[in-house]
């Protein structure tokens, strides 16, 4: 399997943010880690079908030039929108969890929920 730079970088970023999920106590940091994981995936998708010197698939490209594969880019717009929505829902839940339990980290929230 041949790896290129962006691929290695996004795999690294994915697992570094996963490490963030494992280690952070605070819920908001977990949300941010998920956001970063998603960015890593998006970056990976955008690198698919890209080689340096290629044109972006915008407007009327002359037929002589090769353009980058537009499909992953279109997909990633959807993924970004879904990601934004999910993070928004996460944050709203975090706010109401905070209002209800006065807890900002996982352990405190767990303790409160058991009462």
């Amino acid at each position: 399997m041949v790896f290129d730079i962006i691929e290695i970088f996004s795999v690294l970023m994915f697992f570094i943010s996963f490490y963030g999920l494992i280690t952070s106590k605070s819920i908001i940091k977990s949300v941010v880690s998920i956001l970063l994981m998603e960015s890593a995936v998006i970056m990976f998708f955008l690198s698919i079908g890209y080689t340096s010197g290629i044109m972006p698939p915008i407007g009327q490209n002359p037929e002589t030039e090769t353009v980058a594969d537009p499909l992953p880019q279109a997909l990633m717009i959807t993924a970004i929108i879904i990601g934004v929505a999910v993070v928004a829902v996460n944050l709203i839940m975090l706010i109401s969890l905070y209002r209800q339990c006065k807890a900002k980290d996982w352990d405190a929230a767990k303790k409160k929920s058991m009462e």
Partner: protein
Amino acid sequence: MLAYFVIIPILIAVFLYVFPSSKAGRLIAVITQTALVGLAFYLFFICKSRDVVSNIGNYESFLGITLRADALSSVFIILTSFIFLIVAVYTFNEKYNGLFWFLLFIWEGLLIGIFLSRDLFNIFVLVEVTTVAVAVLIMFNRDNRSMYDGMVYLMINTVAVQFYLFGTGYVYKLTGVLDIDAAAKVLEELDKSSLILPYALIITAISLKCALVPLFSWLPKAHGTPGAPSAVSAILSGLHIKGAVYLFIQFNDLFKEVVVSEFFLIIGIITGIVGFIFAMSQKDIKLILAYSTISQIGMIITGLNNDDIYSYTGSLYHIFNHALFKSALFLSAGIIIKIYNTRDIYKIRGVLKRSPLIGAVIIMAILGIIGTPFFNGSVSKYFIFSGTSLPVGGAILLINLGTIITFIRFSSILFGKPQTEPDPAKTDKCKQAAVLVLGTLCLVGGILGEQLIEFLFNVKVSVDTAGYLQKSALFTASAVGGYLIYKLYIKNSPRLKQVREIELSFRGMCVSVGAFFAVVLVVTKLFA
């Protein structure tokens, strides 16, 4: 035509969002839902002879978004629309607001979408949106416990979906298509070693969705949280998890070059055993049912990965049966919780005397789930068992023994004298009708088992009378054994409390996701 299966539930959802409190509106919803079940049967009869494909936007196949119904997915669509019909009848007299109805029926559309979609990215979108809808439904009552449980459910599933999306990216990079059928053709040609990473990423996500060991900690939180309406718990446990099992079948098919089915066989067995150990130690009625789902899923996964047509078909039929009896149990539990105002099985007593009908339904569902002869569970468990060799068959028997002990303990709610005086309020006729239908189907599914399997899955299987009698003898032996073990060891054991208190935190769950991913990677690398 296939798009209607997704659109009709969404239209019902919007309609009920606008008219949440009118009875006529709900009646129209139930009638439309009935029509959808009819339509699902129509699709099923077409799919018996050919696959139905519809390309959204009239692009060619493999280029645009494809919906495809085949013999398997049409069965799942019948199941989905039927269970939602039952739940719509069950909640007919409830006073929920528009948001509840909206999310409930949106959820149906999304689930049917998962069964129909043949596009990897579409599946991502559907799974992610389902997660959000379900999380809001779990926290519907907004108490501390369900807020925390819903939050954990949402976050851990989002993490899993990121793994899935990454895997999808690799598949696209390798094949250049997102269509499952087209990708399968390309992946066959490729070198095995390049498939390992995408396979490990995707199957980690799917295994979390299926709640396999060690990724099951979110399931009892989501399915058993006290605040969630019992209709939601019933669909989650009966149906939602089957969507994940369906994806498991799909992706094992897609990556069949690198799948190590022995690994998942072992994981399935461990899941079954761990599930019943936790189930028999709980005292919350909903948590018992939730953990028992884990154990049954373990059995299904074992059967699916056992290389034998009988086990495979038995597992598919068990998916169907589990949906029936687990929904029946959850919905009846909802009624009982209302009557007794508690969820503690030590405090609920005398259900059979207080409401004989609910008691009868619970008895039928329990007889189904423990695999009593003439009930549906016995047929599917017989087939799973008959295809296995000795060690796996022994494990299946052990899981069934655990299920028997769990439900002997559970059935103590049926008899005895109630400690607290139950609420004398009259029970809802719609709810009783809904659970009665499910309970009766458990019996019908047992008596007509052979014919139903041939009808649904197009596989000719025959129940060998001698084998069935042998299985019945084994069942009787394990029932007696289970009763004795329960009486002698389990009933007052102090260990129950210790097991009950084992619980992973969110970080623990993330660690288990990472560990599972690493193990899959290593196992696939070594053995595929």
